[in-house]
Structures are given as C-alpha cells and as structure tokens.
C-alpha cells in the first residue's frame, strides 16, 4: 500500500491536531483500530495510523514502543494533559476526530487507497 504522511491525514481527513506537531512528516501505510493496549502492542503493524478512544499516557507509551505512525482519537475523545505533554516530548502525533472509530479508520483507508 502507498505511504502517506500524518500531515496528509490531518489535512485531508479534516482532523484536528491535539499534540506532536513536530512529527507530522512521519509516514503511515495502514490503519489499525483497537482500544485494548496489549492488543495494540501485539498486533498493530509498525507505521500504522492507530485509531482509538484511549487518550492517556499509557497510549502514548504504546505508540512509542510499537512504532505506530500516529494516534487518531476518535469520537472526540479527550487527550489528557499529561498525555499531551508526553506526546509532544516523545514526538508522537495525536490527531482528533469527531467521528466514530470505524468511520475515522475508513477516512484514512480511503486516503491510502486513493
């Protein structure tokens, strides 16, 4: 599949930028949707755009360690303050979407297949 930058996802899907502005050139080549952190750890491919509603520091740690390209918080889920500063510090882009998880993932998938 083709690669797109997190910046493209942000702009073309109409998401908002919640954290990690310095890492928007990171590339993604798939979508992965899940909220349970150990599933994400075990199954999310490296360089995937990870769609979830988990906006806590543990999610940031998982993104760093499992090498996902970005986190997309669906359902307008909040990124807590500690998670935001951790994401900025570790260079993890976090985007926000008002739509449900599936719809959010589908928007990114369409971009990947474009």
């Amino acid at each position, binding site marked *: 599949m083709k690669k797109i930058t997190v910046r493209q996802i942000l702009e073309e899907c109409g998401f908002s930028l919640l954290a990690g502005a310095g890492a928007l050139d990171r590339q993604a080549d798939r979508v992965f949707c899940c909220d*349970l952190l*150990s599933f994400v*750890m*075990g199954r999310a491919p*490296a360089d995937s755009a990870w769609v979830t509603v988990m906006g806590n520091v543990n999610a940031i740690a998982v993104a760093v360690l499992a090498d996902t390209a970005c986190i997309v918080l669906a359902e307008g889920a909040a990124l807590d303050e500690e998670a935001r500063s951790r994401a900025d510090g570790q260079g993890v882009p976090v985007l926000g979407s008002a739509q449900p998880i599936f719809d959010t993932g589908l928007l990114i998938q369409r971009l990947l297949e474009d």
Partner: protein
Amino acid sequence: MSQVISFHYDVPGDDFTRAGEASSSIKKVLKQVGLAPDIIRNVAIAMYEGEINMVIHAGGGQIDVDIAPDEIRMVLKDQGPGIKDISLAMQEGWSTAPDEVRSLGFGAGMGLPNMKKYTDEMDIESAVGVGTTVTMTVFAHPREEAAS
C-alpha cells in the same frame, strides 16, 4: 563491539504514568547501538509488557538489561504476589486486572502472550507470596535467518 552493556531500572509500583519509562529508555539505547528496527521493536514491546505487569500486578520491581553483540537479555524481578498457575496466565485472554486498570486500556490478558511472541526465549519463575522473575532474550539477528 564485544562487550556487554548493562542497565538497571527500579520500576515504581504505584505510578501508571511513569510505566514505560524503562522500556522507552532501552529503546533509545538500542537505536544508538544501531540494531535493526524490528529487533528494537521486539525488545521494546516485550519489555513494556513486563514492565507494566510489574506495576499493575506486583507493586513494582527491578529490571536488568544486558545488551550483548548477539542478544538482548532482560530480567524483570518483582516481590509481588506471584503467579499461581503460570500456564493459565500465559493463555490469551486470561487476566486478573482490576476494573480501574481495565478502564485505562489494560486487562486484555495479552501481555504475557505478547512477551512470548516477541522474544526468542522466555522463562517465568514465580512463587506465590514471594514474587516473580521473568527472563527474556531477543537474538540480535533476525529470527528468519536464525531458523534457516
């Protein structure tokens, strides 16, 4: 490089927000050492699952990592309640995680299976009321090559 580089971490038991610091720090070191990205990722995933288990289930513990030219070895030791039935704990989906950590996204019962999946060797020693020691090794060359 022929020598072994060793690192020690004390993992606090009460702090979910700091959990993952040891694993993140080792990940940085491995990048500097110049290991292949997939090897680094295997170590990072396995160590994080062990680190978070210490915090959630055992009140913290100690991690020692030895980085040798041919392998990365992690020893995670805690003085927690121990694991009564290790083969049950190794099963996907089995978890005793309390509700408050489930709401944070933990408790899928996938941590130990992930540790097994992402390492080349894994050993658990545990005694109820005494503690648990998990030893994991990731070979520094790709497993595909190792198998052939």
